[in-house]
C-alpha cells in the first residue's frame, strides 16, 4: 500500500466517523464536532494529494489547508455562538428540538 492509499483510507475513516457522529448525536456540540471531523478528513485529502500526488507548486496544498483551517475556526466560533443562543432560547441544545426559525 502506498502512503497515498494509507492517507486516503485514514481520511475515509475519519469522514465516516464524523458523518456517523453528526447523524447519530442529538447534542448540537457533538454534531458540530462531527462536522469538524469531516472537514479535517477533507484537509487530510488535500495534504495527501499535494504531498504524494503529481508534482505541484511548493506549499500549494498547505496554503489550501491553512485557509480551510481558518474558515473552520471561524465556523466553530459562529456555531458555538448559535448554540449558546439556542440554549438561551430552549434551555437545552438538542438538535431535534431546534426546528423553528421563529420565536
Amino acid at each position, binding site marked *: 500500500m502506498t502512503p497515498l492509499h494509507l492517507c486516503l483510507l485514514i481520511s475515509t475513516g475519519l469522514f465516516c466517523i464524523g458523518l456517523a457522529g453528526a447523524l447519530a448525536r442529538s447534542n448540537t456540540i457533538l454534531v458540530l464536532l462531527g462536522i469538524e471531523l469531516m472537514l479535517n478528513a477533507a484537509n487530510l485529502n488535500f495534504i495527501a494529494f499535494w504531498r504524494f500526488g503529481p508534482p505541484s507548486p*511548493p*506549499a500549494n496544498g498547505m496554503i489550501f489547508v491553512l485557509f480551510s483551517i481558518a474558515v473552520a475556526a471561524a465556523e466553530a466560533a459562529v456555531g458555538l455562538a448559535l448554540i449558546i443562543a439556542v440554549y438561551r432560547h430552549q434551555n437545552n441544545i438538542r438538535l*431535534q428540538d431546534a426546528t423553528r*426559525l421563529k420565536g
Partner: protein
Amino acid sequence: MTLPVQYLWLIPALPLLAAGIGALTPRNGRNLAAGSAILAMAVAFVLSCFALNGALQAPATHAVYNFAWFDLGHDALRLGLLLDPLTAFMCVMVTFVGLLIFIFSLDYMKEDPNYSRFFCFMSLFAAAMLGLLVANSLLLLFICWELVGLASYLLIGFWFHKPSAAAAAKKAFITTRIGDLGLLLGMLWLYDSSGSLLFYDGGHGVLEAANLASLTGQTLSCGLAVSTAIGLLIFCGAAGKSGQFPLHVWLPDAMEGPTPVSALIHAATMVAAGVFLVARAYPLMSADTLIATAPVHALTVVAFIGALTALLGALIACGQTDIKRVLAFSTVSQLGYMMLALGVGSWTAAIFHLLTHAFFKALLFLGAGSVIHAAHHEQDIRSLGGLRPRMKITFATFAIGMMALSGVPFLFSGFWSKEAILHAAHEWNVSPLPLYAGLTAVVLTAFYMTRLVAETFFGQARSPAAEHAHENHAVMTGPLVLLAVGAVLLGFLGTPACPWLQARLSGTELHSSMSQLFASGGLLLLSIGLVGAGLVTGWWLYGRKLRQTAEHRDPLAVASPAVMAALASRLGFDELYAATVGRLNSLTAALANGLDRWVIGGLVNFLGQFGVFSGTLSRETAESTLNHGFDQVSASIRGSGQRYSRAQTGEAHGYLRVIAMAFIVLVLLLVLGGSR
C-alpha cells in the same frame, strides 16, 4: 553520566506522557494517574541532573540541536533544543520542586473526586514549562508558553463549580494573553527583520553577534533601535506571565485554585517563565545599551517596572488577611526583584534569586497548604492562630521559609540572592531609584512576613477549626522538610565570597576570595539593618500583644484606617481596570450593538417598509384588474409550496441525512457508471 542535547526532548516528553496517561485513566484509576505523574517527574529530574552535569563541563558554550519542522516553499521552519547552564539549572529546579509538590498533592487532594484529572493537568503544566526551558527557538518557546497559559487556566479553575474560581481562571488567562500579544508581535517582527527564530544557530541565531549587530543598526523613526522595540514587546509577554505591574492583577486571584497549584504557579512554573524569557533573550534585550543616543534602553524599562512591582507588591501584602494572598503579593514583589536584577544588567543574580525563591516560595505555599488542610480550609489569618504547638513541623519549616524570604542574614538563601540583586542595583549608573525601591521592599517584606507568622502560628486559636488542627501525614511534611533544607543550603551556591552559580551560569572564571564579601560592606550592613528594622516593627505591632479574637482590629488599621483600607483593597487596581478597560469593552460592545440595531437595522427596516408601501400601492391598482387571473396561478403555487414545505421539517438531522444519502448515491453512480 551526561545527557546529550539531542535527547533533551525526553525531559518535557515524560511529564507529557504522564499527562496523557492521566487523561485516559478512568475516575477510579487514581493510583495510576498519580503514580505515572510522580514517576515521570522523578525520571525527568534524574535526566535533568545528567543534563546539568553535561552543561557544567563546558559552561560557556550553548549546545544546540536544530531540526526542520516543516518545509514552506524553499525555506524550512526550524525548531531546536538548547542545552546550557541556564536551561539545565532551571530544569533541575522545576523537576525537583515539581516532584515535591506532586508528592504533597497525594495527600492534599485525597478527598477530591477528580484526583486523576488533577494529576493530568499538573503533569501538563510541568511538561509545558520544561518544553519552554529546553527550546532553542522563540516559536517553540511561544508554543510551550501558551500551553503553560492553558494549563494554568485549567488548574486555577480546577474547582470551576465555584464562580470565583471560574472568574479567576478567566482573568488569569485573559490578562496574560494581553502580554502574549506583545510577545507574538515581537516574534513576528524578529522573524521579519532577521529571518530566523532560533536563538543559537552556529552564528545565524537571533542571539548571536551578526544578527544583533544588524538589529541594533536599524533605527525606527522615533529613534529607537529595532532591537529595543522587539525587546520591549518580548518584555510585554514576560510582564504578563510574571505578574509585573500593570498586569499583576491576575496573580493574587490565581489563589482560587488548589494550594499545590498555587505553589507550582508561584514557585516553579508559570511566573518563572517570564523571568526566564528575559534572561534567555538577554543578549537581545541588552544589545542597545551601547547606543548612547537612544531615547530609552529596553533594560531601563525592565528595571523601573521591576522596581515599581517590587515596591507595590510588598506594600499591598501588608494589608491582606488571607494567608495565601499575602504570599501571592510577596511573589509579585519578589518577581519585581528579579526583573529589577535583569534590568540593571545582572541576569545571573536574577536567576539566582529565581532558584532560591522557587524553593522557599514552594515551601511557604506548601506550608500554607498544610495549615489550610489541617484547619479545614480556613484561610483567614485572623481566624487562625495558636498553631505552633499543634503543628510543630509545619511551623518550623514555615519559619525557615519566612526567614529565607525576609532575607535573614547569613544562614538563609534569600539573603544571599537578594544581596546579589541589591549589589547589582547599587552598581547601576543610570538611576539610584531602583536601589531605593529595593531597599524599601526589604523592610516591608520582613514586616509582612513577621505579621503573617505571628498571626497564624502564635497566640491562641481563634476559631474551632484552628483549635482542632493537628499535624499532617508524613506525605505532606516530608516535602516541607526537603524544601526547607534547600531553602537554607541553596544560598551558599552564590555568596559574594564564592559566586559559583553566577560564574557557571555566565560561563566565566570563578574568582573566590573572602575579601569580596566585605567589598560592599556598607550595603551589606544597611540591608541587614533594614531586615532587622522590618522584623522588629512587625513584632512590635503584631507579636508583642497577640490578637485575642478574630474580630479584633488590626493594629495597622487602628494606627491608620485609610492606609489599611487602601492596602486591603489592593490599591484599587481591579476597580481601576473595571472602570477603564472593562468599561471601554462594554462601551464598544454597546456601540456595535447600537450600530447593528439602529443604523443597519434601520436601513433594513426602511427598505422593508418601502417594499410594504410599494406593495400596498400596487395591490390597490392590481386588485381590481389583475386579481382574477392570478388567483388560479397563485392557488396552484401555494398548493405545490405546501407540498414542498412538508420536506422543510426544520430538523437538521433530516437535512443532513438527505445530503449524506445523495452523496452516497452520487458516489455509487460514479463508481458503477465508471464514467470518467
